[in-house]
């Protein structure tokens, strides 16, 4: 048969497997840039390095209170990036990340109050809390995704979970509500747990809000951000985005879409848990209202305003919105919350991709043009 338009090759379509010479490390590092994340090339990385350098130098030019405040902002970024993965990349809109935040926050409190802070136990408590947040999210995710619910129902179920947890914790006021030494204290919440400590010869270093905690958190944010970039550009991230775009096709390419969704949700839950445990360690308290309706709305605001489909936009947007919120709180937190609501409304109506993401795209085009 005459087939002029099809290339005549005897090569198979699928390439013969050749041995890959690059090491696993090189492959992962190459994934810092890729199709699922904005920003590539020397200009981007130089800017990023400058930003990190500025963040490192910042405490030298600022007062300890402001530095402690900045540390507080960074505490929340993990939950925001986790929501970015779940909502922006996987396409499952969770309204209840605060459930995992709260669970891990309480877990950190209960563990450290019972077992103290010696020998760096606070870090073990932190890890256990994060794991609990992730496991709880995996359980909820199992029921949701294997029950084939999607779209708005994911939002409703997750929101219901966090609100019920809030109600539960708010009624634990009596003395019978205790886990070991730790009183749950109902509506007033738990307090008196130790901050993170670094074991040090001649006395542990206590990381109260201040310069020490600031640097620890900065390092964690940078590592988490880079790690997520690599994960999202890896095959795992490609599959998440494929599921967001067309779950049926992803399944019909042989991917166990429910398992991927569940794992993504567990990752989001673990990151929310990290924020929760760090929050408790930062202020040495946690209350049920951290799982309430208003608290649940805030991560949505950060991620929507920043831009959910890009992890860099999510991170920058979260920091920017938190900073604005802090400035406005001077006039009263009610006013700040009204502005947050309005910001959310305007973002959804005017820049559905998110303010920061739109700005970054615009900037990228500008740089691209300048180079030419």
């Amino acid at each position, binding site marked *: *048969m005459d*087939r002029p*338009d*099809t*290339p005549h*090759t005897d*090569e*198979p*379509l*699928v*390439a*013969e*497997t*050749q041995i*890959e010479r*690059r090491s696993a490390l090189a*492959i992962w590092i190459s994934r810092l840039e890729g*199709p699922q994340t904005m920003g590539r090339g020397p200009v981007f990385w130089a800017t990023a390095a400058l930003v990190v350098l500025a963040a490192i130098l910042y405490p030298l030019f600022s007062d300890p209170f402001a530095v402690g405040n900045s540390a507080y902002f960074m505490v929340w970024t993990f939950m925001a990036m986790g929501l970015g993965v779940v909502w922006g990349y996987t396409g499952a809109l969770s309204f209840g990340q605060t459930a995992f935040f709260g669970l891990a926050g309480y877990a950190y409190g209960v563990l450290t109050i019972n077992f103290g802070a010696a020998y760096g136990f606070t870090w073990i408590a932190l890890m256990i809390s994060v794991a609990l947040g992730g496991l709880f999210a995996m359980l909820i995710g199992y029921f949701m995704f294997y029950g084939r619910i999607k779209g708005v129902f994911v939002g409703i179920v997750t929101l219901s979970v966090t609100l019920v947890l809030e109600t539960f914790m708010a009624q634990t006021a009596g003395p019978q509500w205790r886990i070991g030494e730790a009183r749950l204290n109902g509506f007033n919440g738990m307090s008196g747990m130790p901050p993170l400590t670094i074991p040090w010869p001649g006395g542990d270093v206590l990381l109260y809000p201040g310069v020490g905690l600031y640097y620890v958190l900065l390092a964690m944010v940078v590592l988490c951000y880079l790690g997520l970039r690599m994960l999202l550009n890896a*095959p795992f991230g*490609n*599959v998440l*985005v*494929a599921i967001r*775009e*067309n779950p*049926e*096709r*992803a*399944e*019909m*390419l*042989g*991917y*166990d*879409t429910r398992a991927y969704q569940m794992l993504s949700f567990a990752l989001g839950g673990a990151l929310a848990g990290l924020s929760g445990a760090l929050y408790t360690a930062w202020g040495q308290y946690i209350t049920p209202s951290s799982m309430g309706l208003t608290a649940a709305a805030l991560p949505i605001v950060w991620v929507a305003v920043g831009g959910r489909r890009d992890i860099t936009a999510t991170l920058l947007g979260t920091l920017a919105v938190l900073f604005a919120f802090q400035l406005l709180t001077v006039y009263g937190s009610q006013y700040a919350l009204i502005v947050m609501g309005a910001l959310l409304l305007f973002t959804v109506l005017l820049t559905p991709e998110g303010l920061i993401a739109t700005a970054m795209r615009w900037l990228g085009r500008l740089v691209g043009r300048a180079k030419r």
Partner: protein
Amino acid sequence: MTEILSVSKLNKKFGGVTVANDIDFTLHAGTMHCLIGPNGAGKSTFFRLILGEHAPDSGTILFRGADITRLRSFERIRRGISVKFQVPGIFKALSVRQNLDVAFQHHLHGHNLSSTVKRVVEFTNLEAEVETPAGALSHGQQQWLEIGMAVGVEPTLLLLDEPTAGMSPDETRKTGEMLHDLNQRGITILAVEHDMAFVEQIATQVTVLHFGRIFAEGTIAEIIDHPGVQDIYLGGSDE
């Protein structure tokens, strides 16, 4: 010839409507087989039963000798069944390259992945569109991209639901050549098709489905001459 797919006594009802009625069907390895029938004959449902998107009420599906009746969709795909949907099932926000990356990254990475993607891009005539978002491709190109993606799971059986729907005559002809090429590379093809000229171009064997039943089976010539088949298409007895 070896049987690649054999379906026996497959039944499925939706509410009170029988969409698959005791279907017995055998597909031989290496063939290009077309499934035809009037609208509502149960062709798409039959595909969805094979793919595991619907669970049958009774009956069994064997693929290469193994019972896959109770497996979930992705597990069937991993055993070597692949599909191209009627409405192009592509990832519209992703570029052509990313679409193919996702399709092939199961078993390929690094250099092997990129060289395979390059070959598939050539095969599907999409060289100029590698970085284009898939949603911006023409309808015919989207169909081709999906055929390319369907090859990504290294299938032994490829299901095609109306592969030429909405294509120009030229695109239809190219698609036929593409399918012949895939067939020569060892992929068995089962296609739902309305366009009888296209059926003649590609099929060696034709099955007619009517009211969820196998109505007739044979070579293309036998089917065209079959008096009953002409009746169901012309008699308007469907739906």
